[in-house]
């Protein structure tokens, strides 16, 4: 949030290592790595073609179909694997677009100040308050063919405001710091100051904003696919849920059809959130729990400092 104080002058690489040492962040990164691997391998590890029909109609999990089949005999595990790539690509693309926009708007607003700042902040706040998902739904449904790239573009163009707000606040506080003032006094060019003095100190916040947007993008695109606004022939986890819902999987008790996709979404979201926890704890040292592993017998408590006694007395 806006109240955090960045640990200035920590190089991004050292910061990355610090975040890694955090157990929550490390767990998140491992889960993300597994998803990335599945997305990269895709067809290679999928047991079947996700579109291939088979005589095994609406069967529960079995040796042949680990996660069961749909009402047309398609293999759900293969659909899930095929969907992973789409979900990750759209999420990353949308996250990248939104992050670039948020940096441009946020850092500019924080750096130029005055009327320019007022105008850009107003723009960001307007985008923040207008409900994004209904807007995305409408825009996506108005477009003749909403494939993955279009969806990523729409999400990226609407989802930058939150990050830009936080970046603006941080840039403002950095601008007043000694090292930036010194660079200005030395007559360094504006661009040099922004790229070499300001941006490196915003790395953690940019990373956290990027992850936040990826979470938002993943949820949005899955929602879009689920309500059938986007192309239902591109596999993503929302598409699986769309077919499950439109074929009454619920009423037929075919839990294997809609449970795994939802769990994948939640797991991916959790992994991303955990990485963000790590970044938060790095940015805001108060959130750290003493190296994150309190020792047995010591209860860290606000207002009553623990006392460790030697066993003698």
């Amino acid at each position, binding site marked *: *949030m806006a109240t955090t104080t960045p640990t200035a002058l920590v190089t991004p690489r050292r910061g990355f290592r610090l975040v890694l040492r955090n157990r929550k962040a490390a767990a998140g990164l491992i889960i993300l790595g597994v998803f990335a691997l599945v997305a990269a391998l895709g067809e290679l590890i999928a047991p079947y073609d996700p579109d291939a029909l088979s005589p095994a109609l609406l069967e529960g999990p079995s040796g042949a179909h680990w996660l069961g089949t749909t009402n047309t005999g398609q293999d759900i595990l293969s659909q899930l694997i095929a969907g992973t790539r789409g979900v990750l690509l759209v999420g990353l693309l949308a996250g990248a677009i939104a992050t670039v926009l948020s940096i441009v708007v946020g850092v500019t607003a924080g750096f130029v100040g005055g009327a320019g700042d007022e105008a850009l902040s107003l723009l960001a706040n307007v985008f923040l308050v207008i409900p994004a998902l209904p807007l995305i739904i*409408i825009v996506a449904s108005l477009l003749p063919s909403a494939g993955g790239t279009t969806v990523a573009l729409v999400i990226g163009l609407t989802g930058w405001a939150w990050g830009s707000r936080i970046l603006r606040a941080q840039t403002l506080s950095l601008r007043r710091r000694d090292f930036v003032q010194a660079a200005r006094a030395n007559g360094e060019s504006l661009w040099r100051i922004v790229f070499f003095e300001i941006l490196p100190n915003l790395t953690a916040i940019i990373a956290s904003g990027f992850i936040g947007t990826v979470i938002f993008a993943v*949820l949005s695109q899955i*929602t879009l696919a689920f309500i059938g606004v986007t192309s239902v022939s591109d596999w993503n986890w929302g598409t699986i849920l769309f077919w499950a819902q439109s074929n009454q999987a619920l009423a037929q008790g075919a*839990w294997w059809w*809609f449970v795994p996709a939802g769990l994948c979404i939640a797991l991916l979201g959790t992994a991303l959130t955990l990485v963000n*926890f790590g970044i938060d704890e790095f940015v805001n040292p108060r959130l750290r729990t003493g190296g994150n592993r309190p020792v047995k017998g010591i209860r860290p*408590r606000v*207002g009553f400092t623990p006392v460790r006694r030697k066993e003698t007395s």
Partner: protein
Amino acid sequence: MTFLLRRLAFYLVTAWAAITLNFFIPRMLPGNPVQSLITRYQGQLSTDATKALYALFGLDEDTSLWQQYLDYWGRLFSGDLGLSFTYFPTPVAEVIEQSLPWTLILVGLSTMVSFTLGTLAGAYLGWRRGRWTDALLPIGSFFSAIPYFWLGLIAIAVLAVAWPLFPSSGGWDGAFVPSWDADFIWSAVYHGALPAITIVISSIAGWMLGMRNMTVTVAAEDYVTVAHAKGLKERTVMFAYAARNAVLPNVSGFALSLGFIVGGTLVTEIVFSYPGIGYILYQGVSAKDYPLMQGVFLIITLSVLAANMLADLAYALLDPRTRQEG
């Protein structure tokens, strides 16, 4: 006072921006959408409706863009949002009027409940950080990562299909006619319970995590240490000093994330076929009913703005620094 005036000005600008956006979206579409619509609704569209469509998409060659914009505002002020195709020939305004109260009550109540419970839980967790309760953090982030609609599906599968405690869809029992009598209200509450529980469960973790981190941050503030040094009761320190300050960013965060939450809850309505504005939006989207979509978007945005203003008012009441006096 200046704080509230500034905010009011901001909402006016935002409302203007949203309404203008609403005007431009259909105009930025490639091709001639009206022609495809007319083909789609063969014969069902009256000449009036066709003309309205041409105006909506700005394909009316005779009028300038500016004139179109003025006409659009004129129609808005007279409450004319056009005719819905799906519910032809019901005006969009009427369709929205019937569904809006359902959403306001469902989403409004469950969001308030979720915010209150989540904030209380977060304050408690933040206060007790470093103990086993910290294990709730990853669990909480798992729940906040679950899409609302999927939790809705699970809730239906478990509590309506496998173990039929609640109805799986609709806003009231078909045997009743909407009115203010006790049976109908009871039926509405019964039908709303499952969607409401779904919304609360999927949004509570977000509030909890935010409040927890704010409480941890505030607990290290000097004034909290002073409160401890003063020997005040633990409860006083926690509520009157730590949580009381930690809740401020949570309230402003509440205002800012409303747009986001509302998006999620609308999809919950779709899953439960709940007769609210989200379900109407879904109907509009499935049928490519542009006037209905536009109207719904406008109403959602204005409602979110109104809710935002309420949150701002609450903030002004909670934080004396926004009130300029003495």
